[in-house]
C-alpha cells in the first residue's frame, strides 16, 4: 500500500512537472503558442514512441518537403521516435509510392502526395480513424477539402493543405491613374480586373514587352505554368473550365458519365486551348517553358502583371524583402461569356461571365495500409496539422501550406501576423473562401490511371502550344488516347470512380 502510494507520487512528479514546465517552452519550435487539442505539442510530448521508426515519403524541399521534415524532427524530439524522411521530385512521387504498393513492399508509413491520385492509391490507404475525424481541427476543415480527402464515403486522406488556382494581379498598375489612362487610350476600355479570359488577354497584351514599373527591366503580361510536366495540365484546366463547364449541364466535365466518351475535344476545350496558344504572345521570354518555380519567380519577382496558379507566387510577392510587397491582389479566375453546352451542341451566351472554379489537386497525406506503425503515423499527421503548426506553416511561403480551415479565412491573421495591407489580405481571403461557396466547381479527374490521362493531355496541349498541331487536332488525338486508356483500364472501373467526382461537381452531396 505504501509502495503503491510512493510510485504514484513519483509518476505524478515525473509526468506533471515536465509537462507543466514545457508548456511555456514550445515556442522554441517556432510556434506562437501551443493550441490545445488532440495533437497539440503538449499532447504529443506526453507520448513515448522511443525505439520505433516512422518512414515518410514526401515532396522535394521546400514545398511540402520542408514542413514534413521540420515537423518530423519535432516529432522525434517530442516522442523519442526515429523518423526517416525521403524527398522526391514531384514527377516521380507517384511511381515511388505506387511501385512498393503493387509489390506489397512496406516501404513507407506516411505518404505526402497530390490528392488527385486518390483513385489509384485508395486500395492501399488506411482510412482515417474516427478519433482523428472528430477533433476540433478536423471539423474546421472546409467542405471542399473534406471532399477532396474522401473516397466514396470513407476519409482515406488526411487534409494538410488547401489548394486552388486563382488570379493574381499587380495593384500598383491597376490603381495607377496613368496606367489606367494609357490603357483607355489604347483599347477604349476602362482598366479593371479581368472578368473573362478575353479581357485577361487584352490587358496582358497591352502591358507586355515594356518597362512599366520603371526598374530598367522589361515587364510582361502573364506568367503561367506551361512546361510539359506534371503541373501544366492544371493550368490548362483552369483556362478551359469557364468555357467547358456549363452550370446547367450535369453528368461530367472530362467525360460524359453516361457513355464515358471523352469530352476533351469538344469546342469548349478547344476554345480554351486556342486562348492558351495565343497567350504565349504575352508571356516573358522562355515563358512557354515555365515550370511552377519559374512562374513563382517571374510574378513574385515583379516581372509580370498577371499570374494564376497556386498561392506560391502570391506568397513570394509578399516576402519581407520583396520589391512588390503589398502591390498584389487576388481575384477569382476569369470567366467566359460563352459556354459550350454539350447537350444542345451550342455556345450559350452568359451576360454575367460564367465561372467554374477549379478545385485543383493539392497536397494531401495518408497512412499506408501495410504500415506497422499506424498509430504513430496518424499521430504524426495529426501533429503535423495541429493548429499551432498550421498557423506557423501558413506564414512561410515556400512551405506551400495554404488555408484549408475556416479559421484561416480571417483577414486580420494576414494583416496582423504578416503585415499584409488590407487589400492584399482581404482579396486573398475573399477569393479563397469564395471558391468554397461556388456551385459550379470542377474537380480533378480522380480516377484510376489519372496519371495516364493527364500525361496524355499534357502531351497533346504541349504539341498545340509548340505549333506541332492545331488545337483541334491535338485534342482529337488526346480524346483518342483517352478512349484507349479507358478501354485498357476498364470502362466500368473508370466510370465508377468518375461518378464520385461528378457527384461532387453536381453537388449531389
Amino acid at each position: 500500500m505504501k509502495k503503491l502510494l510512493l510510485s504514484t507520487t513519483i509518476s505524478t512528479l515525473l509526468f506533471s512537472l515536465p509537462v507543466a514546465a514545457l508548456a511555456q517552452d514550445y515556442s522554441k519550435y517556432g510556434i506562437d503558442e501551443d493550441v490545445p487539442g488532440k495533437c497539440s505539442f503538449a499532447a504529443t510530448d506526453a507520448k513515448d514512441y522511443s525505439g520505433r521508426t516512422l518512414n515518410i515519403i514526401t515532396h522535394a524541399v521546400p514545398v511540402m518537403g520542408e514542413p514534413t521534415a521540420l515537423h518530423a524532427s519535432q516529432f522525434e524530439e517530442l516522442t523519442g521516435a526515429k523518423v526517416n524522411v525521403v524527398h522526391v521530385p514531384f514527377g516521380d512521387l507517384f511511381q515511388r509510392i505506387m511501385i512498393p504498393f503493387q509489390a506489397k513492399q512496406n516501404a513507407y508509413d506516411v505518404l505526402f502526395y497530390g490528392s488527385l491520385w486518390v483513385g489509384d492509391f485508395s486500395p492501399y490507404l488506411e482510412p482515417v480513424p474516427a478519433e482523428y475525424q472528430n477533433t476540433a481541427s478536423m471539423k474546421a476543415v472546409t467542405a471542399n477539402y473534406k471532399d477532396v480527402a474522401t473516397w466514396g464515403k470513407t476519409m482515406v486522406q488526411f487534409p494538410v493543405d488547401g489548394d486552388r488556382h486563382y488570379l493574381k494581379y499587380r495593384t500598383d498598375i491597376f490603381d495607377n491613374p496613368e496606367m489606367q489612362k494609357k490603357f483607355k487610350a489604347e483599347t477604349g476600355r476602362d482598366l479593371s480586373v479581368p472578368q473573362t479570359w478575353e479581357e485577361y488577354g487584352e490587358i496582358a497584351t497591352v502591358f507586355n514587352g515594356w518597362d512599366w514599373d520603371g526598374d530598367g527591366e522589361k515587364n510582361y503580361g502573364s506568367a503561367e505554368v506551361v512546361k510539359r510536366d506534371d503541373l501544366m495540365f492544371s493550368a490548362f484546366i483552369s483556362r478551359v473550365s469557364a468555357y467547358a463547364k456549363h452550370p446547367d449541364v450535369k453528368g461530367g466535365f472530362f467525360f460524359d458519365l453516361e457513355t464515358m466518351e471523352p469530352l476533351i475535344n469538344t469546342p469548349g476545350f478547344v476554345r480554351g486551348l486556342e486562348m492558351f496558344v495565343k497567350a504565349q504572345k504575352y508571356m516573358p521570354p522562355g515563358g512557354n517553358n515555365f515550370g511552377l518555380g519559374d512562374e513563382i519567380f517571374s510574378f513574385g519577382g515583379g516581372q509580370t502583371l498577371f499570374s494564376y496558379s497556386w498561392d506560391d507566387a502570391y506568397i513570394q510577392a509578399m516576402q519581407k524583402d520583396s520589391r512588390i510587397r503589398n502591390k498584389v491582389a487576388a481575384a477569382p479566375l476569369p470567366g467566359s461569356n460563352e459556354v459550350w453546352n454539350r447537350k444542345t451542341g451550342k455556345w450559350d451566351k452568359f451576360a454575367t461571365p460564367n465561372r467554374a472554379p477549379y478545385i485543383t489537386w493539392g497536397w494531401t497525406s495518408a497512412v499506408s495500409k501495410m504500415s506497422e506503425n499506424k498509430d504513430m503515423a496518424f499521430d504524426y499527421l495529426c501533429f503535423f496539422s495541429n493548429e499551432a503548426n498550421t498557423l506557423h506553416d501558413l506564414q512561410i511561403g515556400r512551405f506551400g501550406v495554404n488555408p484549408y480551415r475556416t479559421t484561416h479565412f480571417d483577414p486580420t491573421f494576414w494583416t496582423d501576423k504578416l503585415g499584409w495591407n488590407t487589400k492584399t489580405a482581404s482579396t486573398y481571403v475573399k477569393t479563397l473562401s469564395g471558391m468554397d461557396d461556388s456551385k459550379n466547381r470542377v474537380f480533378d479527374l480522380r480516377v484510376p490511371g489519372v496519371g495516364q490521362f493527364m500525361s496524355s493531355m499534357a502531351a497533346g496541349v504541349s504539341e498545340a502550344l509548340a505549333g506541332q498541331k492545331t488545337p483541334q487536332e491535338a485534342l482529337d488525338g488526346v480524346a483518342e488516347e483517352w478512349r484507349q486508356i479507358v478501354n485498357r483500364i476498364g470502362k466500368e472501373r473508370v466510370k465508377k470512380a468518375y461518378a464520385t467526382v461528378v457527384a461532387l461537381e453536381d453537388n449531389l452531396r
Partner: protein
Amino acid sequence: MLGLYRFLKYSAILLWSAFVAGPFLWALTTSFKTSEGIVSGATYIPWLQYKPSLDGWGVLFRRGGQGIDIVDPYLASLTVTLSASAISLVLGTLAAYGLSRFSYKAGPIKNADITFFFISQRIMPPIVLSIPFFLMLQAFGLLDTKLGLIIVYVALLMPIAVWVMIDFFHNIPVELDETAMLDGCRPVETFFRVILPNCKPGLVVAGLFCLIFGWNDFFFAFMLTFTKTQLLPVAVVALNSSVTPWWSLSASALVSVAPLVILAFVVEKYLSRGNLAGAIK
C-alpha cells in the same frame, strides 16, 4: 604566322576553359544568393550586385525542416561507390585478362561474343531495369540497403572495367606472360606476380571510370531505396522542388562534384600518360 597560330591556340583553350568552368562559377555565386538575389535577374558579384548569404550552404548540413543533411548520404555514396567499384575492378580485371589472353568456347559462343555480352550491359537504359531490379532486391530483402545497391552497381560498372582493362591488356605484349610461365609461373601466378604489378595506369583509369559512373548514378539509387539508405544524388535532387531553391541546389552541386574533381587532379599523371602500357613497350 606563328604568333597568330599561338594566339588562336590559346584563345581556343581559354574559350573552352570558360565553357567548362562557367557552370561551376555560376553555381558558386548562386550558392550565396537568396530568393531576392534570384528574382532580380542574373547577377554575378556578391556585395556589389547582391547581398550574399550562407543560407544555401547551411541547408546542406542541417537536419529537419531547414535542411537536407547531406552528411549521411555522402558517406552512403562513398561506401556504395567504393565497394561496387572495387568489386567490379577485381572481377572485371580478371575477366578482361582472361578474354585478352585465352580463347574460350562454349558452343557457338567465343571470346568476341563474351566481350560483347559484357559491354552490351551498358546499352540498357536504367529505366528498363529499374522495376525488375526492384523485385529482385525485394525477393532477397535487399531493398533500401547499401548491399542491394552495391550488387546492382557491380552489374553497372563491371562492363566499364572489362572494357578499359581489355584494351589495356591488349597493349601488354603476350610475351611477358609467356616469359613468366617459362620462368615457372602458373597462369594465376603469372597474373598476380607479373601482370598485375604492371597494371597501375590501367587500373587507375578503370577505377576512375567506375567511380565516375557509380558516384553519378541517379536512377538506381533513386528507384531502389526508400528512406534508410539515401545516396548523394538522391539527397540533392530532393532540392529539385517545384520551387527550386537555386542557392542550396548550387551549393549541393558543388559539394557533390568535389571528391571526383579532386581525385582527377590527384591521378592526373595516369590520365594523360598516353599508352597505358607505355612502361612495357
